[in-house]
């Protein structure tokens, strides 16, 4: 996973509440058993003029020249609600998004972002959008700040573990496997206490 330290990039405002993962990547766009090949399907239902087509709808924010290179997305409450499909995070990352600013995130989607190098930033996005317009924002993950070109800035909260994961581009499976002995010792004791929880290997 690509580490995230700082990013200066354009922020595209998609200020709708409850943007769901079906909207982020429609199920029909998840064509292969793969984590890649999804960027073209990102927001397909809104981004193109026809379902299944690839003619850009000029009204959609990502199709406007000012936001063509956006790497930050600004959105509304409960972003990423709905299906747990990690394809939503994979599609956003493959398209080039590295951070999403929204007042709140769906919990499963938020976890998926963290595991794919996308920083979920919980902030009221309206004021950020007003300050940014089409000018770049700078995100400093270590400092937990978002700074607009105007100098206006916001501090955001993020827990220690996701922050460390994103900063270091860490693989959590490797980290957890370092505790394998501890896990197996716990399971061995637990197996005596809750034998019904375990099937024969």
């Amino acid at each position, binding site marked *: 996973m690509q580490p995230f330290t700082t990013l200066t990039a354009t922020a595209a405002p998609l200020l*709708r*509440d*409850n943007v*769901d993962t*079906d*909207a982020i990547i*429609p*199920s*029909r*766009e*998840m*064509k*292969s*058993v*793969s*984590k890649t090949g999804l960027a073209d399907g990102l927001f397909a*239902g809104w981004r193109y003029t026809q*379902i*299944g087509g690839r003619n850009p709808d000029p009204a959609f924010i990502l199709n406007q020249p000012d936001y063509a290179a956006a790497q930050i997305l600004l959105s*509304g*409450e*409960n972003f990423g*609600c*709905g*299906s*747990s*499909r*990690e394809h939503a*995070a994979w599609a956003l990352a493959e398209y080039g998004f590295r951070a999403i600013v929204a007042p*709140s995130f*769906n*919990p*499963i*989607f938020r*976890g*998926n972002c963290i*595991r*794919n190098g996308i920083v979920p930033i919980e902030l009221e996005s309206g004021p950020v959008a007003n300050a940014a317009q089409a000018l770049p924002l700078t995100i400093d993950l270590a400092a937990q700040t978002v700074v607009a070109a105007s100098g206006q800035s916001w501090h955001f909260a993020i*827990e*220690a*573990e996701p922050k460390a994961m994103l900063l270091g581009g860490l693989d*959590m*499976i490797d980290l*957890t*496997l370092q*505790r*394998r002995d*501890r*896990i197996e010792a*716990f*399971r061995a004791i*637990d197996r005596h206490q*809750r*034998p*019904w*929880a*375990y*099937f*024969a*290997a």
Partner: protein
Amino acid sequence: MTSNTISGRTLFDKLWDAHCIDDLGGGTGLVLIDRVMLHERTGGVALESLAAAGRTVNAPEQVFATMDHVVDTLPGRTDATIMPTGRDFITATRAAAQAAGITLFDLGDDRQGIVHVVSPEQGIILPGLTLICPDSHTCSQGALGGLAWGIGSTEAEHALATSTLRVRKPRTMRITIDGALAAGATAKDLALHLLGLFGAAGAKGHVVEYAGSAVRALSIDERLTLCNMATELAAFTAIIAPDEKTFAYLEGRPYAPKGDAWARATESWHDLRSDDDAVFDTELRIDAADVGPGITWGTSPQHYAPIDAVIPAYEAVATRDSREAYDRALDYMGVAAGQSLRDLRIDAAFIGSCTNARLYDLRRAAAVLKGRHVAPGVRAICVPGSTQVKAAAEAEGLDAVFRDAGFEWRESGCSMCFFAGGESFGAGERVVSSTNRNFESRQGPGTRTHLASPETVAASAIAGKIADPRAFYLGN
């Protein structure tokens, strides 16, 4: 990471404490995962990715997979699917499950079905267990008193490789529902009513414990429906304390403990309830008598109204929806403020999904359909939640009721709950559906979905327009 011992513990606290292997700091715990469930849509990619990284499944005997998301549901189905690349998902999952030594409920296996239907049916989820599945509706299974929640594929890989997940301890919420549901109201109406009251972010990140006399009175099938839609409230998951109904439901199920192990298990499960002095981060209460049959009118599950209501004016939803979101929803749905829901003509009726396709649901819908026929021009489809539900329904003759009423009677799977590139309803078609999501284009490009109980779907299919089910079964 033990809880405060001064006040009592919530049911969730007890499950967390029993499974927390290590405190990782910052409110995060390393949590033991007892069961992993997979399906071909997201499970195959997790298993393949795990293998590609040179890792193995730590405890394959604790992992189960089923085929539900992209399989066809038409009779005589094979690995070939109407969804153009569906076969790839099926064959990849089958190969990966075999290679990893995972139990698979494959096509043709009488245990096959929708993951959240087959797990309780097989006794895979049990009270007090942790279970994860890369599927948002895993919260359904909390109805049995286990801690079950949905995750993404990468977290599924983590659970497969390590038998654990790193979890930030969620906040707790109790929703107490006392009294009796109004006549004609179902667990689905209750779930939708809660969404209407509290909104699509109403339980954001919380573990929701459903409690109260109305919840105790629900059957296990109904509890599964109620818990199913906790993800629509943006909850971490939902849970209901196990009781005698839970134990009666599970006893004798294939993967439930037997003999002495059953006795020991049930003894321990009696402690699985929130202490009287347990403190929740949030407490909400509703009166079950306020819940009647209802239906959604917009493109979020929070867009809910009683069945005999009109489409609300913007002012009624302004605390939750922006004007743009409201206008967009009305435009998409082809409805106007002030319009009576019961005047909306429908093109299709769908009974199925992990929300409402268990035997209880099919019986209630059949009670409405018996001796009646769907209106001309309405396409009506019933997809049982599992192969076993289908067989049980057929043993009772329910399939004949559905067929005689003009419904298609399908093989089990997720089917047209969502459009994966295969079967769909048409653009602009209005569908009354027993499913869980009414998002734009969820059931087909441009398709308009109204979420409701199976009874309301059945009544509407007969009427050819959105209909109040009470008018249909009061005479039965």
